[in-house]
């Protein structure tokens, strides 16, 4: 019983192949300008990792901003429900999910059955999204994944006055010109990010366990800053947090085929 989920996000496209509760394969690639193509390529990669072919898939669910454009899915579900489903599947004790994606962030509260109780998403502004970190990493001459690790070396993290991506950029450039260490800058950026998203999380109401999903959850600097901001530990899940939406979609597909 092979179920698949495909998440076409604003920055990356992800796919997950499930056999009952076993994760057989997953893949990720940068979203191209063509969502159909991105989805087809990524599902192909995930199938290859799972040593399967397209015909083996019993049911496939699509999600993400490009979900309506994926040709091979039988059903689409919003990414909010998919993140909730994925997190609940991995860790049923999770009640709050903070998802930071490429162009938005969401806070979702669940009940014990994994059903959504409340959710909130940010409004159109790049602060508090993966795009903000991408811009900042580039400015510091770092790879996106280095932004988290380097911040642990910070001694005096900077305090960003503005979380607006454009204004914060000007502020970071000013600090760079003052020869401030990249670790202190990176730590300040991660903290600013966490502070922005914590506001959203608080407004949906924090209930333990809390976990993070989306690409930004891979940034340990943001993760730790978020724990500090909210005063609760972030539950680390056993799957790449960026895969959560695709995983949730695959779980929906599995349920569709009768899996419990």
């Amino acid at each position: 019983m092979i179920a698949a989920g495909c998440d076409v996000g604003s920055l990356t496209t992800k796919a997950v192949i499930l056999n009952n509760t076993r994760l057989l394969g997953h893949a990720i690639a940068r979203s191209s300008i063509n969502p159909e193509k991105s989805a087809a390529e990524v599902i192909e990669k995930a199938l290859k990792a799972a040593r399967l072919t397209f015909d083996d898939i019993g049911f496939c669910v699509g999600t993400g901003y490009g979900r309506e454009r994926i040709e091979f899915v039988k059903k689409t579900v919003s990414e909010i429900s998919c993140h909730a489903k994925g997190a609940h599947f991995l860790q049923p004790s999770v009640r709050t999910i903070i998802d930071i994606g490429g162009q938005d962030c969401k806070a979702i509260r669940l009940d014990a059955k994994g059903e959504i109780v409340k959710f909130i998403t940010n409004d159109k502004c790049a602060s508090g999204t993966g795009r903000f970190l991408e811009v900042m990493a580039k400015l510091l001459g770092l790879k996106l994944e280095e932004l988290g690790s380097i911040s642990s070396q910070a001694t005096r993290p900077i305090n960003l006055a503005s979380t607006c991506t454009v204004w914060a950029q000007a502020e970071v450039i000013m600090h760079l010109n003052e020869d401030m260490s990249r670790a202190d800058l990176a730590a300040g950026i991660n903290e600013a990010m966490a502070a922005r998203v914590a506001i959203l999380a608080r407004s949906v109401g924090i209930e333990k366990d809390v976990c993070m999903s989306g690409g930004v959850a891979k940034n340990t600097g943001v993760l730790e800053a978020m724990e500090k901001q909210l005063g609760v530990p972030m539950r680390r899940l056993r799957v790449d947090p960026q895969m959560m939406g695709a995983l949730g979609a695959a779980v929906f597909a599995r349920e569709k085929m009768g899996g419990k």
Partner: protein
Amino acid sequence: MINNMKEAARSLQNDFVQKRKKDGGKVVGYSCTFIPEEILHAAGLLPFRLRGIGTTSMSIGDSYFGAVNCSLPKCMLQLAGQGSYRFLDGAIITNGCDSMRRLEECWRKASEDYPGTLPEYYKYFAVPHKSVDYSVEFYKEELGGMMETLEQHFKVKISEDSLRKSIRLYNEGRTCLQKLDELRQNRDVPISGEDAMAVLIAAHAMPQEQFIVILKDLIEKLKKAPSLSDGKKRLMLMGSASDDMDFIRTIEEAGAIVVADTVCYGSRTYSVLVDEQSDPVHALSSHYLTHSICPRMLGYYKTRRAYVMDVIRKANVDGVILQNVRFCDLHGSENGIFERDLESAGIPCMRLEREYGPLSETGRISMRIDAFMERITDPVFPINKVMYQDPEVQQHLHSK
């Protein structure tokens, strides 16, 4: 017949407005629900609710307003500056909210740079924020002043008799709209929220006499029309100004039907009739200042909440979308209080901040609406409604 209303709702200079102008009639625009159309009607003018539809650029709107103002008055100014409101013979701007109040100055200033774009009759009308004896008196004085200037400018006489006639006419319109609400509240809803919104907009964009004729006919047809609500979630739309039928369509495409609303341009103006017995100007003042559910009125949240709860009960609402235009401080803050209170009463709510104007954020909006629909759909299998017809899923549902 509803097509006439849709046409009137989708364009500024609709056929009815053009006909009135061709016949030598005068059209006066007004910015918010606090202006009694009865007075303009009694003066022989066509009242026309100002809107911001059809803007494709904000080049003028953004130049005069600040960056953190609501996009509705900006869109109105854009239309004014580019000459789309040249057909108006007059305009009355209120202090409905602070951004709208600024429209009065911005339009006046913009007309210096874009000559000929300010209507010849142009008036600022101050509406009090409280509904007490002395504010009703103030409002009455403002109305008196407005009537005087209208009489002078348009060389007309607003008699007590003509005011009484206009009040009766508009009350008839209100009664018809209440009947439409009753149809929308039924278990079988014969009209989509998108079409109902067209009717509500048309009420303030065409001559009331013609509106009533069309609406009466429509109501008779709807009584025999098939239900559009089978298997759909019944939603209510609340919050700030919304005259965007495409926005409602986006909501309804997610498997919902909008059965009620409290938005400005929507169902705000007809739940109570104007008193036909007492002095007409006093009756209008007291009516417009007392029976508004706009959050600009200070200290009446609980009254508004009671009204909303009543509508939710009557229309059997499954969920509420609390939307507001970005930077709308009135609805932005009141939506938070409504969310708290309605959720604690067991009514699922979703808050949504959006821009007024061309619907450019459909992806983001649909994603949230889809997620909200998934939230309020019976939770056993929250993928979609089609599956409930699936025998396999039916079995699964019953086994649980």
